[in-house]
């Protein structure tokens, strides 16, 4: 049962196409777990369809239809790609994007309890996989932008609640938290930030930039 969902604005940014690539990835991966948000996103796309229908048409060039019609015969219908099944329950949308299962990734150690895989960086927007052993902490921090965290395995808890696989946490600005990995299996998250994290401890402040945080 998913308890933490993207808000309306985030889903709308996804459906409308305004969201950054990394943000779209985390929303799409959440939807692999969440039937409810898939249905919500479909409704929002219908809004896009409605807006498209109501746009004042911009005339096409006079030979546009003719030139497209002559191309139709060369076109073969696309087949749905057949993709291998994940061996560790990695959602396909994520798997297709990162090119393998979570366990195939090359995890880079960041201290004794935490490891990560960088996935994407464009400007201030980054996406990475984060893995913590039970009890691992990221350390108290606030946010220079938005921070979105989607649980893929295990779980974590902080002042805002507990998060299990499929749950999406949204944090921003001065909201302060210190996520701690729950007991049991390792906690693996997909994490997207649109600005740097602002750590409180001097050590983390110094170390974080070395790992691209």
């Amino acid at each position: 049962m998913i308890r933490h969902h993207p808000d309306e604005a985030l889903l709308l940014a996804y459906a409308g196409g305004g969201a950054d690539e990394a943000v779209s990835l985390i929303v799409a991966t959440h939807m692999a777990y969440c039937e409810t948000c898939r249905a919500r996103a479909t409704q929002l796309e219908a809004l896009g369809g409605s807006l498209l229908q109501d746009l004042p048409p911009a005339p096409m060039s006079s030979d546009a239809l003719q030139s497209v019609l002559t191309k139709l015969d060369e076109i073969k219908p696309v087949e749905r790609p057949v993709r291998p099944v994940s061996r560790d329950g990695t959602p396909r949308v994520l798997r297709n994007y990162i090119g393998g299962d979570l366990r195939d990734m090359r995890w880079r150690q960041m201290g004794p309890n935490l490891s990560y895989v960088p996935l994407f960086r464009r400007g201030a927007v980054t996406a990475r996989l984060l893995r913590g052993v039970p009890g691992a902490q990221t350390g108290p921090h606030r946010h220079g932008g938005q921070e979105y965290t989607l649980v893929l395995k295990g779980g974590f808890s902080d002042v805002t609640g507990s998060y299990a696989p499929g749950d999406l946490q949204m944090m921003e600005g001065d909201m302060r938290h210190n996520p701690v990995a729950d007991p049991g299996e390792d906690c693996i998250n997909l994490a997207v930030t649109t600005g740097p994290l602002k750590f409180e401890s001097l050590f983390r402040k110094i170390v974080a930039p070395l790992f691209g945080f």
Partner: protein
Amino acid sequence: MLAYARNAPFPALRRFPRRIGQAWRLPQTLAQILAMTPETGDWNALLCRVAQTRDRAAFASLFGHFAPRVKAYLLRLGATPALAEDLAQEALLSLWRKAHLFDPAKASAATWLFTIARNLRIDAIRREKRPELDPEDFMPEPGTAADDGLAQADEEVRLRAALKDLPADQIQVVELSFFADKPHSEIAEALGIPLGTVKSRLRLAMARLKRVLGEAE
């Protein structure tokens, strides 16, 4: 016009998108022919004909209606006229290529084409990948009712009416969500209002649209 009338769907089929193709009938009266302006034409059915019989006349009708709208959409998002023209043609070629994947129970033709145009734009203009949902990803959660799906085309008509009734400040943030190519934090900056205000306007707009859709069912 004649070509259009010959290929146009029987209007009553709008309610039975799954049965399109089994129940083709030619329009019986002049009134029916006149009723089939592009505004009420069943684009879903035309798209199904493209999928089932590779019907070029149906494709031409869809092109005539949607290509200029896709072009307008791309222009709104800042594409140059030449690029917008190219991508609009590309979008309609994608429609031909992917028509067999179209499911009228899940989306209207306009919505489907919107998602094609949106993804093409992200690909071509922003040079980013669009992470696509994989239909085989995971089973439905227990307890969430699947959409009956039959009402998609009707839903679009009601949505369009409801959109026009929204207060101007709500329409603005909804439109910018689709036409600004910006996350909401930047939309807020551009409008000079706090992000919280953008979000609350979106919430109000969505609540209102949902109410309208809910009431009509």
